[in-house]
């Protein structure tokens, strides 16, 4: 054992390695990404790791390896589980041989996600057991136990953490590589009665799963991480909680005397332990984030056993229905629950001046800014809809670009654009999709639009990486997370193979050419594609930075007002433009649009232009 200062996701990865995981697949998504990255970084050499094309592919790869007896893990964020739900729902009926952990990161808030869905609820729906860690250290230990439970019961298990655990850091004791378990997979043993899903097998296995989950609920009642913290003086009130909230409850209850239940396995719910917790209580406050999972389970237990305990929480309005809990929210809710009259701590501060509003923005020099701006200028005055997608380029919705009219989920922009076209054919429909998102879930939508005779322009914003989640490779980059250099999948060839005849690739940092290309391509009928290819600025080294010549600048403000580049600021006189050299990447976009050519000096990186940054 040795001590390390680890992020929750790193701890989960090291825990999986300690458990002898043989194969890990996944698709990047905040806040889950660092798990797979850490597996790749700390790979003792015998673990197969891949960034899959999407979560469904990753789930299937992990399932196949688990059929063959390997210990496997598949990683994703909560909305990724929606993509992978098809294989997971059936996989639960089939089961696994090697231990298989489905690592899902939930995001109360949501801080970086579309929804506040709760994977604990998904576990109930899919009948898959769920583990819910409460801290970095807890996650490290618990993931090892999750593999054991999975293997013992022949079922995949869900290990769901939330952002505060995934992205929290703690100095914890971890195993040395020599202490890692070594798992030798037996290999796939043919048995069509076991591995081929048919209605007859499904009905039989369904019954077995229900029976097993009842047994598991008992097993979980004795599980050391499901705990009751006993009160010192007899009391009538208790708190039931989970995950990061367990820490908030303990932190805010240092001077309070209450009975506390921490539920580490929300499904199957540890009913016996809950009964013990409810014994003698009048009222329980459920402190939860996302869905009221424990609250519902306790109401069920009270109903089933005829207990007269009032269960409070989200359903009674005592805990907010949405958003992330904070120490203040938890403290106030508990104070109200206990009927304390709260004296506010410290003196209230005087009201501060208006705080700066800082929505996230595209980075200075981001090629997406140039792509959006070119399309915006080319289509000026026409009736358009710009359907966006999931990635950094969702930030194209911000002022002044304002180039994202819709955003739903991965790859949806293409279908949305198609639907709008069929409803109002006189609108010029655009679907903007990133390179990684195109491979993950844009290809089906493109085929659908093409075959069903839509008229729309597909704009692929190809920055040669999965930028939003921290620059993971994808099939268009020609490298894998294991460091191999491999044949790239060409999006041009994919699009042409579908049948598109107009597929043009252009450097968005060439402003005039980009505008001209957009005008020409959008005039064509049917589904056509423009690939704007220029690497993410995080992958290239800026060479020459641009500078405004104050003698030439006429203070028209066009560059600042129209581009919204964070490097473009007002100079000392408060009128003329100035460039913050610590941010400018020399993309030259502002140089190209300044009406009096007052900006110069930027040099684009040449390797960047050829899209070779990744090689």
């Amino acid at each position, binding site marked *: 054992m040795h001590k390390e200062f680890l992020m929750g996701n790193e701890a989960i990865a090291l825990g999986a390695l300690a458990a002898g995981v043989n194969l890990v697949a996944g698709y990047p998504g*905040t*806040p889950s990404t660092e798990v797979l990255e850490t597996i790749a970084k700390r790979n003792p050499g015998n673990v197969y790791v891949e960034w899959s094309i999407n979560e469904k592919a990753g789930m299937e790869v992990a399932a196949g390896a688990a059929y063959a007896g390997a210990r496997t893990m598949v990683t994703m964020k909560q909305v990724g589980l929606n993509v992978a739900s098809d294989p997971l729902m059936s996989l639960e009926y089939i089961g696994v041989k090697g231990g298989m952990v489905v690592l899902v990161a939930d995001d109360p808030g949501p801080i970086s996600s579309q929804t506040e869905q709760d994977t604990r609820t998904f576990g109930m729906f899919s009948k898959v057991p769920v583990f819910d860690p409460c801290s970095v250290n807890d996650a490290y230990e618990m993931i090892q136990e999750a593999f054991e439970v999975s293997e013992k019961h022949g079922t995949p298990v869900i290990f769901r953490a939330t952002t505060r655990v995934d992205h929290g850091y703690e100095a914890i004791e971890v195993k040395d590589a020599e202490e890692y378990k070594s798992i030798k997979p037996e290999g796939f043993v043919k048995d069509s009665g076991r591995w081929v899903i048919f209605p007859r097998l499904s009905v039989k296995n369904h019954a077995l799963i229900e029976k097993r989950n009842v047994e598991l609920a008992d097993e979980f009642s004795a599980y050391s991480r499901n705990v009751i913290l006993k009160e010192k003086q007899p009391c009538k009130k208790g708190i039931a909680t989970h995950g990061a909230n367990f820490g908030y409850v303990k932190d805010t209850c240092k001077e309070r005397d209450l009975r506390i239940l921490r539920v580490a396995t929300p499904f199957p719910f540890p009913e016996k332990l809950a009964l013990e917790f409810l014994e003698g209580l009048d009222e329980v406050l459920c402190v939860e984030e996302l869905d009221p999972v424990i609250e519902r389970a306790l109401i069920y237990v009270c109903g089933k056993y005829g207990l007269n305990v009032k269960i409070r929480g989200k359903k009674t309005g005592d805990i907010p229905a949405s958003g992330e809990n904070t120490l203040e929210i938890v403290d106030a809710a508990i104070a109200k629950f206990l009927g304390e009259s709260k004296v506010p701590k410290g*003196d209230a501060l005087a009201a*501060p001046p208006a705080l*700066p*509003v800082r929505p996230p923005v595209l980075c200075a020099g981001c090629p997406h800014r140039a792509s959006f701006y070119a399309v915006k200028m080319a289509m000026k005055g026409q009736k358009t809809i710009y359907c966006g997608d999931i990635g950094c380029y969702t930030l194209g919705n911000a002022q002044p670009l304002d180039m994202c009219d819709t955003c739903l989920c991965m790859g949806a922009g293409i279908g949305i654009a198609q639907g709008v076209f069929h409803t109002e054919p006189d609108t010029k429909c655009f679907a903007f999709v990133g390179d990684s998102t195109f491979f993950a879930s844009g290809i089906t939508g493109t085929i659908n639009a093409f075959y069903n005779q839509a008229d729309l322009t597909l704009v692929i914003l190809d920055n040669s990486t999965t930028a939003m989640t921290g620059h993971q490779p994808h099939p268009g980059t020609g490298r894998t997370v294991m460091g191999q250099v491999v044949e790239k999948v060409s999006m041009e060839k994919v699009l042409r193979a579908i049948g598109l005849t107009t597929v043009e690739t252009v450097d968005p940092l060439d402003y005039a050419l980009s505008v001209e290309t957009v005008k020409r391509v959008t005039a064509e009928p049917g589904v056509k594609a423009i690939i704007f290819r220029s690497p993410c600025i995080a992958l290239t080294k800026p060479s020459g930075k641009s500078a405004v010549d104050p003698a030439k600048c006429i203070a028209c403000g066009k560059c600042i007002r129209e581009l919204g580049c964070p490097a473009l600021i007002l100079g000392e006189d408060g009128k003329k433009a100035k460039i913050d050299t610590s941010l400018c990447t020399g993309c030259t976009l502002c140089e190209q649009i300044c009406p009096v050519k007052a900006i110069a000096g930027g040099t684009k990186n040449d390797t960047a232009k050829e899209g070779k940054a990744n090689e």
Partner: protein
Amino acid sequence: MSKSIILCGVGGQGTILASRLIASAAMKKNLPIKTAETIGMAQRGGSVFSHLRIGEADTPLIAKGQADLIIAFEPGEAVRQLPFLRKGGAVVVSSRPVMPVSAMIGKSTYDANAMLTYLKENVEHLTIVDADQAAKDLGSAKTLNVVLLGAAIRSGELGLDEEEIIQAMKERIPEKLWNMNLQSLAWSK
């Protein structure tokens, strides 16, 4: 010992490295340490913060009115986090504002001087670091995080001394940058 520290700034300013240095130094002293960081979309120019708790704690998060020290990379962000400061706690703040794009294009306003005035009126234990002067003296604006860390040590609320931070720095930063960072750490002396 137990200390609750908040680092805050704008995505891309280097708050995470500073938080990492404090954590490593605490770890070397065998103190329990927990931190919570903003990772994700907000790193693209949004408001970011780190909460650090040195000593036994049930959660890395710090409640309002409980922070011993706020290290702010930006005046407006210092004001945003001020409700977390305990009575008598210290604030170390960089004087250099980061203008939000929304203010540059006239969709919002931001008066950074008003922020500094507000801090002066409301924080007794305040250190304003002249970031522009530091950048001029040091020849680079890149080590602002280390300059602020130096001022934080001297505020007496970090719970770690200069030598401990230097040791942590030497482990995390390549040798050719040591000199630059040592100068930055000492700048506010």
